[in-house]
């Protein structure tokens, strides 16, 4: 029997999963999906930053478009080391396509202009 708290939405239902992967305690179907996923292949959305050459915005905030396997988080972070954005970027632009072969892109969550003229 595994206890866990659902993170699919801010309610945070307290879930119980038995050895046969039966889920209880969830108020909606997302909870059941989350619980099974969490037991078998947990995933997380990664939100982090990437270095840029912009003086005003030295770091560009990015995220994985969808959750990626939890065990790949630190490897994904390592991939971002040494990347330097030196071109203009718009929100939603792909910064790293298909990160670690997950089929999921890492996208910009901010727009950056590298050479703004005031």
């Amino acid at each position: 029997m595994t206890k866990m708290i659902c993170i699919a939405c801010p309610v945070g239902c307290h879930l119980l999963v038995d050895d046969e992967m039966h889920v209880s305690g969830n108020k909606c179907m997302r909870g059941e999906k989350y619980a099974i996923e969490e037991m078998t292949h947990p995933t997380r959305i990664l939100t982090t930053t990437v270095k840029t050459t912009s003086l005003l915005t030295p770091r560009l905030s990015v995220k994985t478009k969808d959750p990626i396997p939890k065990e790949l988080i630190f490897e994904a972070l390592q991939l971002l080391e040494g990347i330097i954005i030196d071109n203009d970027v718009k929100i939603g632009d792909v910064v790293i396509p298909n990160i670690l072969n997950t089929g999921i892109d890492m996208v910009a969550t901010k727009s950056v202009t590298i050479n703004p003229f005031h």
Partner: protein
Amino acid sequence: MYDYVIIGSGIVGTNIARELSQYQVKILVLEKENDAANHQTVANSAIIHSGHDPKENTLKAKLCVEGNALYEQMEKELNIPLLRTGAFVVAHNKDEELMLDELYERAIRNGVKEILFHDQEQAFKLEPNLADDITKVLSLPSTKVTYPWEVAFACLENAILNGTEFKKNSEVTDIKKEKDYFKVEINHKVIIETKSVISAAGVFSDQVAYLLEKNVPYQIYPRKGEYFVLDRKAKGFVQHVLYPLPTSKGKGVLIIPQVHGNILLGPTSNRQDEKDLLSNTRDGLNQIKDDLHTLAKNIPFNLIIRTFAGIRASSSFDDFYIQESKTYSNFFHVAGIDSPGLTAAPAIAKYLVDHLLKHHNLQKKNNYDPIRPKKTVFYKLDFEEQLALIKKDPRYGNLVCKCEKITEAEIVEAIHGPLGNDTIKGIKKRARAGSGLCQGGYCEQTVLKIIARETNQPIDKINYYALDTPILVQETKVKP
């Protein structure tokens, strides 16, 4: 070869440097920390006492009263801030009123000129927030409040202007007397030669003296004092410095209006072994809150923005120890300078230099300049003056510290100059950025970037205060 090496750049060392810089002598001030004025000078009540408290016929009494008067002259010459608060010592009953009478007598004998009593009605008219059970107060109009480290900076800047040298990050690690000069070792590395040494090393005075002498005639007994700082929104809560009746432990826990509008609550007075342990304690802070009820009501504790602690250089000698070494001529102890050290500092300097004049051949300079020009405190200027300054330098238009209204231009000024500083706390001491309600939560990152720009350093080299205390410890997203 220097004529005088002064060990310590606190309020005493800097006053001595300034006094000596009037003469044609070569002076070096040594400071072990990364800035001038670090220990007692930055952790006290800021009071320029009237002289009612020290024991009669002591140096403390004499130099306190003289120092109080000298601050008037320092205000004119150095443009230091001076708040003429006056002070009340309070009594709650007939027994205490008798003790007020004794204080009165002592003050008169110590040479305090301005002194009077207020009855209950008059006292509450002047200070509506006094504790309800106060029956009579002793009023000391000559009591003032200053900004202690600015006074030390002002003295040292003026001394430097008049030829004094200053070395920070320079700890004295050995002192040896040759035939007619001293070899002063700094940081176990460099040797400085000097005819005389003046030790104004505060809490470390006995340790410094032991470097030279086997038999140091006093011992420093560190005594901690803790304080609360109220935000300047508390301004006006009281107008006077409020004292309880003194006890054997000292002057007691006070309420002290400050020059920029803040109010200090404290200090406690507790002996400890460590000289360098400036920690606040739960018991100490609770004691302040408990003791204050005898002074005032409606105390705005909700405006507390900070606590701090200082260590007094109290000594076994029970008075200021200002004497030439009995063993080695031309080594001067200026030790055991606890309260009223801040008040007495200019008088201590004169007292010492008067002695030197009798025994050393000191010629006055004819180009000595006692003036330190007034520092720009932008928020204090009126609108027209501010507009004029901004025309000259648009950095006065960029407000960096929103809580205390400090501009970029003032921060830049604090970085440069003979006593400029490139640390966050050093800038806070000079320009006051970070001294307000949010305690630098907002402006620290801007100050850090301004320092980096002005001193041509990368932002991750900017220190908090001491050497090697960078705020930014590791850059992210770079390959290791």
